């Protein structure tokens, strides 16, 4: 079996295009409800480079999945800009966004059962996933069996997904999601409900996809141990980018408006409504608690 080579984006069959960069600039998103609106994102600035692997961390309801859906073009932001490669989603129609999902962007939703047809085999699922690309007049870079072999799950190619264990089922989901060689792979809680070993297998598969295809990969997870396996983490808190982690070290992030979220542990020292002095030092700034004179 010949493993396809990773090159720049090409229409030639048998070749893949690598990753794509993603930029969110001042993204605000509101969910409209009868009576009141819910603010999910309050101004997210985020840059993800081509071929990067990023894990979005954060508590439930803080906007991680919304960020992911906006990156997938499944929703349009209430304000701000989302660009994926050269594509500014504000300027794209629904059909154009759909066309992107048929080729360049792949979205893996939460739950193994929802990303694959449970009654179909992995091979058939990959065929199904490639259908959108074919209908768009493009040829997928590999056949289903080539992809399965490339990802190392070819032994289960003919077994209906419903019969596979949960971990393998999720690996097939990953395979289905990269069936059309997307440049951006978005995964919402891909390891939820998986045992730690199975979770590690799935993450390793993401890493292999990233290595082999150069795909930009963004996942949402609650699990810090999973996030730790990614070279970059982004913590979403209160609808903003709260922090970033690189190679195990966490950093606060200054957003476009100059705001910065302090880590929760610092809030004991600097509780809300505290006044601080910002003192410039040679390689940065220093915050000191300030007492107002009466």
């Amino acid at each position, binding site marked *: 079996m010949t493993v396809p080579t990773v090159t720049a984006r090409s229409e030639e069959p048998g070749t893949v295009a690598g990753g794509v960069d993603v930029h969110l600039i001042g993204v605000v998103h509101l*969910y*409209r*409800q009868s009576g009141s609106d819910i603010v999910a994102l309050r101004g997210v600035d985020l840059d993800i480079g081509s071929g990067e692997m990023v894990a979005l961390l954060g508590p439930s309801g803080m906007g991680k999945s919304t960020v992911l859906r906006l990156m997938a073009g*499944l929703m349009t932001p209430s304000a701000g800009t989302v660009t994926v490669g050269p594509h500014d989603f504000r300027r794209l129609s629904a059909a154009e966004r759909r066309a992107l*999902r048929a080729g360049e962007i792949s979205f893996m939703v*939460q739950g193994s*059962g929802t*990303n*694959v047809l449970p009654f179909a085999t992995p091979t058939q699922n990959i065929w199904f996933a490639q259908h959108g690309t074919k209908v768009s007049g493009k040829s997928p870079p590999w056949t289903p069996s080539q992809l399965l072999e490339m990802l190392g799950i070819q032994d289960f190619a003919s077994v209906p997904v419903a019969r596979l264990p949960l971990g393998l089922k999720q690996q097939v989901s990953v395979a289905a999601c990269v069936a*059309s060689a997307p440049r951006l792979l978005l995964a919402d809680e891909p390891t939820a409900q998986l045992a730690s070993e199975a979770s590690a297998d799935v993450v390793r598969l993401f890493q292999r996809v990233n290595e082999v295809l150069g795909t930009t990969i963004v996942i949402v997870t609650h699990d810090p141990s999973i996030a730790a396996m990614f070279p970059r983490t982004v913590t979403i808190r209160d609808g903003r980018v709260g922090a970033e982690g690189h190679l195990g070290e966490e950093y606060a992030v200054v957003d476009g408006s100059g705001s910065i979220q302090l880590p929760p542990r610092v809030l004991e020292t600097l509780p809300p409504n505290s006044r601080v002095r910002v003192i410039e030092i040679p390689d940065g700034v220093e915050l000191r608690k300030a007492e107002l004179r009466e």
Partner: protein
Amino acid sequence: MLVMAVAAVAIGTFGPIYLHSADRSVLNSALDHAPSGNLGLTLQPAHRTGSMHQLEAAADKILQPGGGRPWFGQRISTAEVGFTSVAAGQKYYSSLVDRSGVCAHLVMVAGQCSSQTGTVVLSTRSAKELGLRVGQTLHLSLIDSSRTASLKVTGLCAPNPSSPYWWGIDYFGYGTGPPNKPVIDNAFSTTSTINAIAPRALIDHILQVPFQRTSLAVNSVSAFKSMVEHYKTSALADEGVVVSTQLPHVLAVASANERTPNSIVLVVDIELLLLAAFALYFVASRTAWERMADVQLAVLRGYRPRSTLSVALAEPIVVVLIALPVGLLLAWTVAVTAATGLFGPGVGASVTLLALGGALVSGVIGILAVALGARRVLRAADVGEAPGASSRRLSTWRLVGDVAVIAIAGAAFVELTVAGVSGVSGETNADPLSAFAPGLLALALGVVAARLLPVLLRSSHRLTRSRSVAWVIATRRVARRPEFSSEIVLVAMCTALAVFGVSGWAINARNHTVHNSFAVGAKEVLTVSVRPGVRFLPAVRSADRFGHSAMAAVVERATDGTTLAVDTRDMAEVMSWPPGLSATGSTRIAHRLVPRGLSPPVKVTGAALRMTVTARVNARPGPQLSVDLFDEGSQTVDQVELGTLATGTSTYEAPIVGLCPATCRLMDIAISWTPPTITSTQAGSADLNISSFSELHGGLWEPINAGLQTLRRWANLTGGAHLSTSSKGLTALVELNPDGTPVEVSPHDVSRYLPAVLTTRLEAIDGEPPPVIGLDGGTINAHSVGQVLALPRVGSDAALVDLEMAERFLSGPFTYATTEVWLSSSAPADIVSRLAANGISVLGVDSLEARGRAFDHSGVNLAYNLFLIAGMAAALLGVASASLALAASTRGREAELAAMRAIGIPAGSLRHSIEAEQALALGAGVIFGTGAGLGAAAVALRSIPEFVTLVPGPPLQLGLPVILLATGLATTLVIFSLVVQLGSSALVKRATIEKLGGSLK
């Protein structure tokens, strides 16, 4: 879903298949039940000089179909000449007949068939009447000719008038004809014999061309009728041949009968098809979530809308496409299986183009239904849409839809109530809005139930604050889950159509049974001929061994009315007298038809009469004393002159030999005076006392039981006499009429007015007693003892009288009367032979059973059978869709139920909650559906044309078949509850806590 799709296609296909078979059945039935001779063509020369050759030439020009079986079969030629023959002083009338192939159809009981010139075959009873045996000679005189002939009797045959070979022509007319011109059966001979003894001008030729009943295709009827009409015209113009046939009439009746079920079948089938489509939609929408993940996946994978749509619809459309041939096959199989029972022998089930069209239309409707059912999937898959806006739009559309459905249903119901099903009474074309009213009403009430139940449940929950977990879960689910709404609507529609269909079928069956029985008059009615000289009424009573099972009846038909005279002694037991026909029952009616206080008739049977009279005559010349006798055998009146009445005691005698061969009834004793010159001043009187009245029997004078000492046994109906009685006999003080009009003293065995039950159209006008037609064709003043809309067997414009009473009004023979014997269900099996032994021969039979058989394959009945089929199909559809819906929801509810089990709700409570929610939904549907079905049946059935246009008769019985409906509903509910119990148990068993791990999202 496949089951529902197959059901929808099968229903859509079954209607056209059923209609085609029903048309064939109606046509067959019309042809089979047409009287012999009403089918086929009868050719006769337009002039007496015509010949058989001329008829054959004309018959050669009859068109036959281009392919298939020929319409007409082998011809039958007949030559006939009338003759008389005298035996024992009596002249009998008959015809000498040659008919092609006759020897194959005569039932020979002695000797051989006639094959040589100069020979003849007689029927056994004709031979007996003429006193002839095989080998003896029949001497005959030709009618309208002086020629005579003598033919050798070579054989005797048994009459078989009912054989279709005779074409309904009365070749065995023995006993018919007036008493003074008795007719015997035809004699059968050869053409050479007829040609040898009769001049050509006296011989009647006919050529009969039989119609092959099964050769005519349903869709060729119009062309065939046109051909026959054209042939009749051309045969007369070109060949000088008159063609007579009842075929166009019979076919027109069949066509009219075929039209009757068309609208009903169409309406029933469309309603059922829409119901099946709704059931399909229901199941499709309940199973739609199973495809939701696939569709969402397609959206995520960037499928184009068309591709996403195909993912959503591919499966259900494939299911419907698979259902097309399966449903077609199922409908055909059901129709073939039921064909013999429903449509009669020889009628199969064909998949016509219309049936294929029905299948395709059903398929299209099915695809639309599943597409609608799948809309949830497409909507849910639209991951970018905010849920609130979608549900707001849905609520608005639902409200608009509900209002529209209820408004249309209300309009349809009002239309149905005001104008009836047909809009205009008596027409068979249904008003579409009215015709669909039952279905629309069911839909509307189903919608009302579906919207009302959640509101009621929310209120009841607030009020009762039940602590039963099962009840709380059930009521909240039913109140909040939208899928229960469509379940309630579906069950309501199924129940309503089932109730309506079964009610329609039962009411139709009941009314037509009553009307058939009314049309026949009794269980069986024999049209009979009575041997000359035989008294009909006593003969029937004598044949009725056990009594009250055979009733003599005489029907006198005239242009201005019909008189039905029956033996009221047996009327209550034999005659069909449906409830509601009259204010009182038939027993009381029978009593009222015989006036009280009448004396028995005075019967005379001897060879001479003798009357001893003491008279004082005051008139010149002396008045004439006579008696009028009515011969009950020959039904003739004879006046017997006893002589001139003279003062003093005298004995008056007169021979009556031959006048009363059986029995005579004394009509009156008449005193008539004819003065030499008629002036108004002349007067005469005669006082007479009749002390004895006797008849001569075997040389002895025997007193006649005339009741001369009993005044109430005598009457003076003509006036002019004062009557009194004493131990010395009957005294009459008579004022003689100078104009010669006799003063009559009559036995008081008749009343002034004949008691009669009259139909409303014969009721008295301005209080005058209505005249009715007597059995001798005369007019009798009647006294109404009851009023009905119509009378059994004779219909409207008719009077019912007592036969014995009506006979006492006879002054001559029956004229246009038909003699019949009506039989009850208890009539003995040998009644026909017993009647024959008493001189009564059966000419024809009309029975409730035969009419029932004919009605079984009538258009109306076939239409109402479809009501029953539709009702049963609707019930099955309801049970099946509710069961399938429960099964389909299993997978979706596993997680929910597992979660409840995980928080400690017992499995039993969960099971009970499922049972309770299904009971609530199904119960609401069944209750509202039953209401809709009963309401529709109560309003619609009374105006259905087939009931309205029935001949006048007993009132329609529109009572709903409560027991049948209750049984059906109970059975359905038992099945429902079994299905729900099994389903809920299985569902709760599968909802284990482990399922929570595998249930994502």
